[in-house]
């Protein structure tokens, strides 16, 4: 077993699916792999692990949900969960809500976290926000470079066959749409 569990690439298992070391559970209790696996057993002492005790007991009286921490001044609109008793002292200020997606997010945050409506409304807002992003780009004279944004060049470099398949499928789809449009016109 020690050979099988060695660290060099020559020792790796021959096939992806095979039986593992067959030893009885009694034998497993006395197992020692420290000579073959670096660091094996170095954290055997469960009491010395960082997660023990699971909940460290704080000093009595210090268990405040909202300790007195200086409040960050809100420079932009921040949404607060209805399940928070107060605004948290610190928050992120990236991408404040705006437009139709912002209105949807405003509505979503009226629901508690236990309501599916909250999360589905947020996901709808996300999709609306994507359209707003494209419209905003075009309004500022920026045409999104979809090849760069989607990293498509790496598909061509590392997965050429799949790339060509996608191009062919897209070509056929566009061709069918053109044919359909022409037939409708005639």
């Amino acid at each position: 077993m020690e050979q099988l569990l060695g660290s060099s690439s020559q020792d790796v298992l021959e096939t992806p699916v095979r039986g593992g070391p067959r030893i009885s559970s009694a034998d497993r209790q006395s197992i020692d792999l420290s000579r073959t696996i670096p660091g094996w057993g170095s954290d055997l002492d469960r009491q010395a692990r960082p997660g023990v005790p699971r909940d460290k007991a704080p000093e009595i009286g210090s268990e405040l949900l909202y300790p007195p921490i200086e409040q960050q001044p809100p420079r932009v609109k921040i949404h607060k969960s209805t399940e928070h008793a107060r605004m948290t002292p610190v928050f992120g200020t990236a991408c404040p809500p705006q437009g139709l997606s912002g209105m949807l997010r405003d509505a979503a945050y009226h629901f508690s976290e236990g309501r599916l409506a909250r999360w589905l409304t947020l996901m709808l807002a996300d999709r609306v926000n994507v359209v707003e992003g494209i419209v905003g780009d075009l309004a500022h004279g920026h045409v999104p470079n979809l090849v760069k944004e989607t990293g498509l060049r790496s598909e061509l470099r590392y997965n050429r066959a799949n790339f060509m398949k996608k191009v062919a499928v897209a070509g056929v789809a566009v061709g069918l749409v053109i044919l359909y449009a022409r037939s409708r016109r005639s």
Partner: protein
Amino acid sequence: MLAMSYRGPYRVRIVGKPIPEIEHPRDAIVRVTRACICGSDLHLYHGLVPDTRVGQTFGHEFVGIVEEVGSNVRNLKPGDRVLVPFNIACGECYFCLKGLFGNCHNSNPNATAAGGIFGYSHTCGGYDGGQAEYVRVPYADVGPYKIPDGIDDDNAALCTDVFPTGYQAAEMAGVKRGDTVLVFGAGPVGLFAAKSAWFMGAARVMIVDEYEYRLDFARRFAHCETLNFREIKDPVWYLKKEADWLGWDCAIDAVGAEARGSGLQHLTGVKLPLQAGAATALYWAIDVVRKGGVVSVVGVYGPTMNAVPIGNALNKGLTLRMNQASVKRNLPRCIEHIEAGHINPKEVITHRIPLEEIGEGYHIFSSKLDECIKPVVIPPRAMA
């Protein structure tokens, strides 16, 4: 400054943003030298996390140099080299005082279901992340950890999330001497969970995945057995048989919301928002662990609901443990393991990508191209 900007599912680009400013006396501004793309970033990238806004900068795994500190930050000074845990934690609330830094109650106004996380949607606090040249670090007197001289930036970057998360996965699984441990997912977290299971005295560790190149790496890096579930008609049956029909002592879900292996789970959890991700790995974990065993979950799921056989978990008397890793709590021990030579985390890094090419980085990682395991993003100033 240059920063990654989310534009919609499967679309990201580099934009110019203002350098972040101190917004609270306990803030610091850090100049990023390394930022990783995490498997959980892919859930954002695929548009699966509610309240992911166009324009946000992702990135919760980063290290860098302190540029500026707020008036109440006494433990750091400009020029300090720091790694920044992905959790934003006040260090003073009910949860932080219990050591649950991943569950801080004072860093995320948007939800009580999650603590604040850098660059991880407004569901996790609406902070810009570290896939940029600079980043604002709140509660800088609590989270950032000065990197010891013997630890390079690559190893430090992997200590901001994936190594401590893998370690905590094994710890929550309660691995003890002689245990059999099954890990779902041969990504970085699964690999570190497998390594950590050995630290805790496991007798047998197996990793399950579908990508042969990852399983090959797992055999070399984590010294474990592997199973490609694509080669087995019924993976649960096979894994039970492998454990002499008893079941595994511990099972770790290091996959989360985008698991493969069940068409129904994938359809309802990934293609359609009918559940909060495909819970195939968790489903299998509950089934293959022995009665009275432990299932440890560090794979990330969304905030709604998932279809898992909770009745089986009840009838088998399982212990289910899960959490976002409390990085600050695990970090000292993880650093000790690196310094002792037990593990060299940076071996999992397969791609170093200039920040300007981040679109390709996301695509390569998302599509598992070029045998990608862990991509690291490097800002222009740190490339020199």
